[in-house]
């Protein structure tokens, strides 16, 4: 079987890609993509550790299931906010959404 470290390195790579997207992109939809990439990396970690425990456990899968459902809720809310933002500002550039800035 594949050593655990390979899954770990893959999920840390997904985290890095997501952080890169979060810091460099201005399009709100791309920011949502980055968050989804990070969440997928985290889910992969949960499942991999659940499988590689000795004795193995199913809790990793269950927690990943919770995380997937919450990510779906987050995507629905986020996209609704993006639609409202587009209606109000005529743009999905997060730099222009500065009305609440102090």
């Amino acid at each position: 079987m594949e050593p655990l470290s390979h899954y770990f390195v893959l999920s840390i790579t997904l985290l890095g890609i997501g952080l890169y997207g979060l810091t460099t992109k201005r399009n709100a939809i791309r920011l949502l993509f980055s968050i989804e990439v990070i969440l997928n990396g985290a889910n992969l970690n949960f499942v991999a550790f659940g499988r590689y425990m000795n004795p193995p456990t199913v809790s990793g899968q269950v927690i990943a299931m919770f995380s997937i459902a919450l990510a779906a809720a987050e995507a629905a809310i986020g996209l609704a906010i993006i639609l409202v933002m587009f209606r109000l500002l005529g743009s999905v550039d997060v730099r222009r959404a500065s009305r609440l800035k102090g």
Partner: protein
Amino acid sequence: MVEPVFFAVATITVISAVAALEAREIVYGALALGVMFISVAGLFILLDASYLAMFQIGVYVGAVVVLILFTVILVKREELIAPEAETGGKLRSFIALTLALIVGSVATVIGTGAFKPVEVYPYSIADVGLNLLNNYGFGFIVLALVLASALIGALTLAKMERGES
């Protein structure tokens, strides 16, 4: 020792994750994100979590990607074609990436050598369901409430008129 199946699926995952963020048109980015979700589902199958893989495809590819595509269609088209201006955050993001990789490699070297997996995973779908309802039943109910309120909130936001904000 890297198994070829894992290597192939992992490569597709990383490439499509980068493509989702870097594709010139955001529609192609959304499709690349769908490919990434499917390949993560493939990794779940490699980890003997086949039900979770189905769940991932159903929720992410079936719901989230479709939702994103609808949003992209509703948001005006010129906005999407115009190339995104960079924020000048390249240095910050490079630092974040490097830090994540260093921490990850160190943790991998220190921590994961102790894990000796069993060859045959002894649990089936039934055990996943039993564990979900026996040990995480309260969380399951709270999750249902969160999902319901999130959907009501999303509908309210989407229905909001221009003057109401």
